[in-house]
């Protein structure tokens, strides 16, 4: 059946929906930076300390998932030709619940209070449920899904798995319920969050965006066709092996190669992306490309580090191995790509909504600023270098906390404050022109 209605632009959500997500994210990042600054090296002693877990979730929920959810609500009508049903309501509820849930979870980590934990889990659970159902409906409605849509479907399933596993882990640790194998469950939760939800979303969106905006050759057909589900199957097999039989040693020896396969998929992806980007026809300097390449290089390094740690206990048993991996994947890969993408999405949406308004009112005397007038290359580039410095110093802080934790925290706060300032400036320029574009009397 032909779905002609799916091309309508009216289905793009109002600009306030994605922007509430995008403007909230740097605030959580700044909060996380302040926390690191105040509590210092205590935050980096072990990935298991409640403070470290709280800090990690401020970033993964408050920053990464915040932007990823907002961007998906915005992008689905264009990428999938399939709008999210009731997008305004879904956007408001998801944003509000994710915002409150992240704060409540932080409180629950710090205080260990059972009511706070229950409230946090309910808020986050309901928020993600609304998002997953709405986005799921839009994705599963696509009649002939391509590689990007298939990958996004798996990313959303991975999000659901991450949320369920996260709730189980929290119920177990807080003493609300009695659950066994909590260490295993925690590892599965974080692997599905990073390699599943964030990883598969970045992977599948890249298939579309990298060739399109940088004018590179397409990803090879076999990569697009087989990589996302291969990673997904490996993650699922690993989950089942780990969940079923935590203690037996033969399972241990089967589970590691399975996860290694999934992780190698990401090494292949990062190498392929860097190779395609080096062949790009569009050669002008591009800040988003800088963020993207940084993310891909760090992704490759993280895979090598993980493989090293898994097979050589001298690496894997060091105190800072897990911390380095977490910092690399969260701050170095996912945050880099998200930060870079914001510099494309936000100025474009400003321009797009103003231009549509100009055409609707035929108000041709008012000039609509172009994208680089909303966020200038210069300020975006400065923020990139701050982001890079913050990353390098956080990595150093994982190895030598006493020396580097404060510079790392300060640079992270500076980078995200500048990101926030760049976004707020774009929005204020949008508002100024929006007011000028009025129906002629």
């Amino acid at each position, binding site marked *: 059946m032909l779905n002609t209605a799916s*091309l309508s632009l009216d289905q793009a959500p109002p600009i306030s929906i994605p922007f509430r997500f995008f403007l909230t994210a740097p605030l959580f990042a700044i909060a996380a930076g302040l926390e690191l600054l105040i509590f210092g090296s205590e935050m980096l002693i072990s990935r298991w300390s409640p403070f470290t877990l709280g800090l990690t979730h401020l970033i993964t929920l408050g920053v990464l998932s915040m932007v990823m959810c907002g961007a998906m609500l915005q992008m689905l009508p*264009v990428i999938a030709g399939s709008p999210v049903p009731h997008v305004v309501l879904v956007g408001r509820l998801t944003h509000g619940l994710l915002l409150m849930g992240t704060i409540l979870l932080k409180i629950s980590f710090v205080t260990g209070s059972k009511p706070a934990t229950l409230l946090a889990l309910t808020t986050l659970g309901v928020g993600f449920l609304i998002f997953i159902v709405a986005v799921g409906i839009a994705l599963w409605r696509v009649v002939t899904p391509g590689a990007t849509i298939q990958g996004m479907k798996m990313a959303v399933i991975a999000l659901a798995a991450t949320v369920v596993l996260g709730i189980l882990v929290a119920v177990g640790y807080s003493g609300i319920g009695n659950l066994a194998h909590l260490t295993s469950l925690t590892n599965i939760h974080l692997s599905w969050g990073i390699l599943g939800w964030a990883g598969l979303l970045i992977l599948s969106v890249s298939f579309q965006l990298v060739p399109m*905006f940088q004018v590179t050759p397409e990803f090879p057909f076999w990569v697009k066709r087989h990589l996302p589900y291969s990673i997904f199957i490996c993650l699922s097999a690993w989950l089942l092996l780990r969940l079923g039989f935590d203690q037996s040693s033969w399972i241990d020896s089967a589970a590691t190669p399975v996860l290694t396969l999934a992780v190698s998929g990401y090494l292949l992806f990062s190498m392929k992306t860097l190779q395609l980007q080096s062949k790009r026809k*569009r050669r002008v300097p591009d800040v988003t490309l800088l963020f993207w390449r940084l993310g891909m290089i760090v992704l490759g390094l993280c895979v090598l580090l993980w493989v090293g740690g898994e097979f050589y206990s001298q690496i894997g048993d060091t105190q800072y191995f897990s911390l380095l991996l977490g910092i690399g994947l969260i701050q170095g890969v996912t945050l880099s790509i998200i930060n870079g993408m914001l510099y494309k999405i936000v100025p474009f949406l400003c321009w797009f909504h103003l*231009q549509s308004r100009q055409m609707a009112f035929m108000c041709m005397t008012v000039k609509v600023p172009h994208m*680089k007038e909303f966020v200038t290359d210069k300020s975006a580039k400065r923020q990139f270098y701050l982001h890079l410095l913050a990353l390098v110093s956080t990595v150093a802080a994982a190895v030598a906390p006493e020396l580097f934790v404060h510079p790392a925290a300060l640079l992270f706060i500076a980078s995200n404050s500048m990101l926030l300032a760049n976004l707020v400036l774009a929005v204020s320029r949008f508002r100024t022109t929006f007011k000028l574009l009025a129906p002629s009397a």
Partner: protein
Amino acid sequence: MTTVSTAMTADHRRCDEIFSRAEELVSSGNWPDGEERFLAFRDAMLTHFSMEEDRLFPAFEQHMGHTMGPTQVMRMEHIQMRQLFSDMEQAVEARDDAQYLGLSETLMMIMQQHNMKEERMLYPMMDQTLGKAGGEIAQLITRQE
């Protein structure tokens, strides 16, 4: 067999390449060649638009029985892009590279999303509905390149 999808998608890629070259020349300060490539790009795009607006869209609309719907949206986006071409031309005349590069970045975003909608949805619909007539128009496009 040449279809609307294959011919028009190939034409999109051809335009992308001329676009990238023009942008690179302007960015390196080579205005004479940059201007020449920009005009070649704009003309290639305008030819592509008129192939759609004068031939493909009317044939499709006739089949659908109305002019509202997807072709209407595509026409609107053509207007948005024509506006950007004219702003870019002014920037070329003024030799204002910052202005040109800001506009070309904006054009790239709208153009790629527009192309994606056509390649994913509209052209496949046309392949299904226009049949032989679609193939003939497609051959015409291939010959023009």
